[in-house]
């Protein structure tokens, strides 16, 4: 999706040169440069903590730079506030939206105008809002009078975009815009971004999802540890491997102290078993088993209920059902201390809000879980002194800053201290929610090594991560959650980012596909299935059987060897025509699905008993196409 109409010598709309910024003891940016033209989508890439968001926020006036130069349309730009940046025509469509949830869509779109003097004309605002949405090709996609609180994440984002356009924003920065969107919603967003580019806007697209970078950006600039390491490279000339090398400064495998997928076999007895856990409304039915010495990943989109499920296990939020067994014995966890006494540790997602006690020094933060578990009047710090020293050296933490405030440490160091807090109680199970969020790349690999080490010592480790790449690099097995339910439990070895994305899709976007399977199964008295095919195995994404149809051993969210499915011949042939199994006589046919952008959505197949008729491939394709357009329509209505 490059823009061939764009002449090479188009003057840049925005130029940033040698921008630097320090937050406390963290040098967020040290020598960042960026050049963006009108009529292009410019990818701003980098690993977590590389400074992408900081640079975006400097350009959009959220934070002030320490040094360096910004030029916008040939003039020096020094926004002292977001208001000043907006007045110049620069808007940030933020990760966490800056909308007022209790105001209506219309009021939010024109929120900046509420701060200007003069009278507001609601009919006029309504007319302008309608025009803006029409320009985005999203007429009637937003109920203008609805409270923003009740909108979906995608709709809120649309409000943000409309809000930027209402101010005639010329340069728009999208900061991780797809983080909480379903695949269908991502498609819609990309369509909108494409329209904006064609209308001559300059667009900055901040992301670390490479697949998206390739499908939407024209050029990319890559940051690493606050520095621009690659400037304005044409996306078309790059490969994924190139970008990764720039982002991390070394080959990917080196970062994850790779688990050695072969280790999975050595994992021991189940240590933590969770069954039918529910904590409504966000957690509806969660079951998984964690073995000793294993690193288990919990994958899924933001909003799938992963953090909430872990918080429910740890009694940080009320549970309304489910059992938790530790080493085969059911345990009652009513308060976090019950979990701690049972040897479960939990590094919660939000470091600042849930883990750090800012007014206590590093030592006391480190000792906090020990203090919680300690029975006695005093502190009992001394008895843990030896273990503390051991942990400090193991984690590479400075020993001379124990009396300092934890807030003076970098994000990575803070996270190490929090992890050490839990290691100090010698847990049997350690749950970590987004353990590398806001952590620099060096510390990231140190954290992975720690996880590896404690798993090797027999601790069961659960890692929640929205970063699929991290999940695949660190874990041995992944449990996928969607809409508050565990829907898949698969060995990491057979997964890829694409497969995880498909598995993690919100059920609203897969419901129609399931309905399609159901309809096919009924119509042809057959077993209908939807799966990702590998050479020797498959991952089932959905299955439906009519009464009396052959019962294949395929269940959504599970992996099977071809030989175990009962239709190995058909799977080997991958034919749209009917294939008859030599042994059982089962007749199967299958069709490869692709979405509008050509992404592989797996295969839909039908298996019927001998003598039953099967439909033509075109018939299935037509039904599937209906499904896809329906998904679009649904995206509008959702």
């Amino acid at each position, binding site marked *: 999706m490059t823009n061939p109409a764009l002449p090479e010598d188009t003057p840049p709309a925005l130029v940033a040169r040698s921008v630097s910024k320090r937050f406390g003891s963290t040098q967020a940016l040290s020598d960042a440069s960026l050049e963006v033209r009108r009529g292009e989508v410019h990818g701003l890439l980098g690993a977590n903590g590389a400074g992408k968001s900081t640079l975006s926020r400097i350009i959009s006036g959220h934070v002030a730079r320490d040094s360096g130069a910004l030029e916008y349309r040939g003039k020096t730009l020094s926004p002292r506030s977001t208001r000043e940046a907006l007045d110049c025509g620069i808007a940030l469509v933020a990760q966490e939206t800056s909308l007022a949830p209790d105001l209506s869509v219309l009021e939010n779109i024109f929120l900046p105008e509420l701060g200007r003097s003069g009278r507001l004309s609601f009919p006029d605002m309504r007319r302008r809002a309608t025009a803006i949405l029409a320009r985005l090709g999203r007429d009637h996609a937003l109920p203008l009078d609805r409270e923003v609180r009740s909108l979906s994440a995608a709709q809120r984002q649309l409000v943000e975009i409309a809000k930027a356009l209402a101010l005639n924003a010329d340069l728009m920065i999208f900061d991780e815009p797809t983080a909480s969107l379903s695949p269908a919603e991502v498609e819609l967003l990309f369509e909108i971004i494409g329209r904006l580019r064609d209308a001559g806007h300059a667009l900055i697209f901040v992301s670390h999802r490479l697949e998206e970078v390739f499908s939407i950006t024209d050029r990319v600039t890559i940051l690493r540890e606050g520095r621009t390491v690659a400037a304005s490279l044409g996306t078309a000339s790059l490969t994924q491997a190139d970008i990764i090398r720039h982002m991390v400064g070394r080959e990917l495998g080196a970062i994850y102290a790779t688990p050695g997928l072969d280790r999975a076999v050595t994992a021991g007895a189940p240590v933590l078993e969770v069954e039918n856990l529910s904590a409504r409304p966000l957690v509806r039915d969660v079951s998984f088993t964690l073995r000793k010495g294993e690193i288990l990943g919990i994958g899924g989109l933001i909003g799938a209920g992963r953090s909430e499920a872990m918080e429910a296990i*740890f009694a940080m939020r009320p549970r309304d059902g489910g059992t938790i067994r530790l080493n085969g014995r059911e345990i009652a966890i009513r308060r976090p*201390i019950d*979990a701690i006494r049972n040897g479960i540790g939990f590094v919660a997602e939000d470091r600042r*809000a849930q883990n*750090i006690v800012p*007014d*206590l020094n590093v030592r006391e933060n480190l000792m906090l879980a020990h*203090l919680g578990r300690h029975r006695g009047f*005093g502190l009992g710090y001394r008895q843990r002194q030896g273990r503390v020293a051991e942990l400090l050296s193991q984690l590479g933490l400075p020993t001379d800053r124990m009396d300092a405030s934890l807030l003076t440490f970098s994000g990575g160091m803070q996270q190490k201290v929090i992890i050490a807090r839990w290691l100090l109680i010698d847990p049997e199970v350690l749950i970590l929610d987004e353990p590398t969020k806001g952590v620099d790349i060096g510390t990231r690999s140190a954290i992975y090594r720690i996880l590896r080490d404690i798993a090797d010592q027999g601790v069961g480790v659960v890692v929640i991560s929205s970063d699929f790449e991290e999940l695949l690099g660190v874990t041995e097995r992944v449990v996928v959650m969607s809409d508050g339910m565990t829907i898949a439990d698969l060995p990491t070895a057979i997964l890829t980012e694409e497969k995880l994305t498909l598995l993690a899709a919100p059920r609203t976007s897969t419901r129609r596909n399931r309905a399609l399977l159901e309809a096919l199964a009924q119509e042809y008295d057959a077993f209908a299935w939807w799966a990702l095919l590998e050479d020797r195995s498959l991952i089932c994404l959905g299955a439906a059987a009519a009464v009396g149809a052959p019962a294949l051993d395929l269940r959504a969210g599970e992996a099977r060897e071809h030989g175990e499915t009962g239709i190995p011949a058909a799977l080997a042939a991958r034919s749209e025509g009917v294939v008859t199994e030599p042994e059982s006589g089962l007749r199967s046919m299958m069709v490869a699905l692709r979405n509008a952008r050509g992404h592989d959505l797996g295969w839909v197949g039908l298996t019927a008993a001998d003598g039953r008729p099967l439909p033509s491939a075109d018939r299935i394709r037509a039904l599937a196409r209906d499904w896809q357009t329906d998904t679009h329509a649904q995206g509008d209505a959702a």
Partner: protein
Amino acid sequence: MSDASVNRPSGVRRLTRSLEVRMLGLALLIAVGLSLLSPYFLTENNIFNILDQSVVIGIVAVGMTFVILTGGIDLSVGSVAGLTGIVLGLALQELPIPVAILVAVASGAFIGLLSGVLVAFFGLAPFVVTLGMMAIARSLAYIFSGQTAISGIPDALSGIVYTTVLGIPANVIFLLLLYLAAWGYLTYTKGGRTIYAIGSNREAARAAGLNVMFYSILPYVISGALAAVAITFSIAQILSADPLAGNQMELDAIAAVVIGGASLAGGRGSIIGTLIGVLIMVMIRNGLNLLGVSPFWQGSAIGSIIILALLAERLFNWRASR
């Protein structure tokens, strides 16, 4: 900041980084100033006067420190002092002195328990709960006393004030021991550190397994009980229990705690800072009396000094954070 010493401050810098040290400096400054203005200020007699006047407010301020450290506030201490004073006066008519004191302190603790449960268990705002408790306690004080002061308190009660050990009055010794105990508790025990952790980050404290519920209630109980202890010392001096007693005491206590460096958001503050805050308050009042300033002007003077001290502190922190 022009220098690069932010991370490794010199000795003096490190000292002035501690709020207690800065406030102690302010206290000394006030003492020097007042001794220059009034030759009587630094006499032994007056120093004992200041300590004596610090006892009642100092005791209440300890409880207030506990409450404020958890991020709460206790507006009811003055009224609770008034009510428990009446309880003490009535109890002394029937019961021996130690038992009567115990009854008064227990009733103060009970009121604190009510506030604490309403705040910590039911999640009501501390400001509102203790505001309500303030009105209730004052009204009960009037009802129980029949709207008049109770006199005829046994003389023997004054022994808790006028007994001296090595020349130091018993009430001053009690005050110092109380501060020592409170300091030790807040610094060296699980409960004390839990109180800090709750005020600093309740969610993290809970996640780490600390008993957030119990240690959110306890400070209110301590505060109520200490209000009763404070009024006991006051009654022992004047041998009369007045339903109006303790009026506006909460303001003095909160002011002392805040001058001592505590944050009303919780988590930050110290018992030593509170002691300094109490001494600053009492010295100013004492000094203004010595200088013959009209009592009507004293409120303005004390209020201005509180605000100026906090303003200076804020400006200092702004400068330090740039």
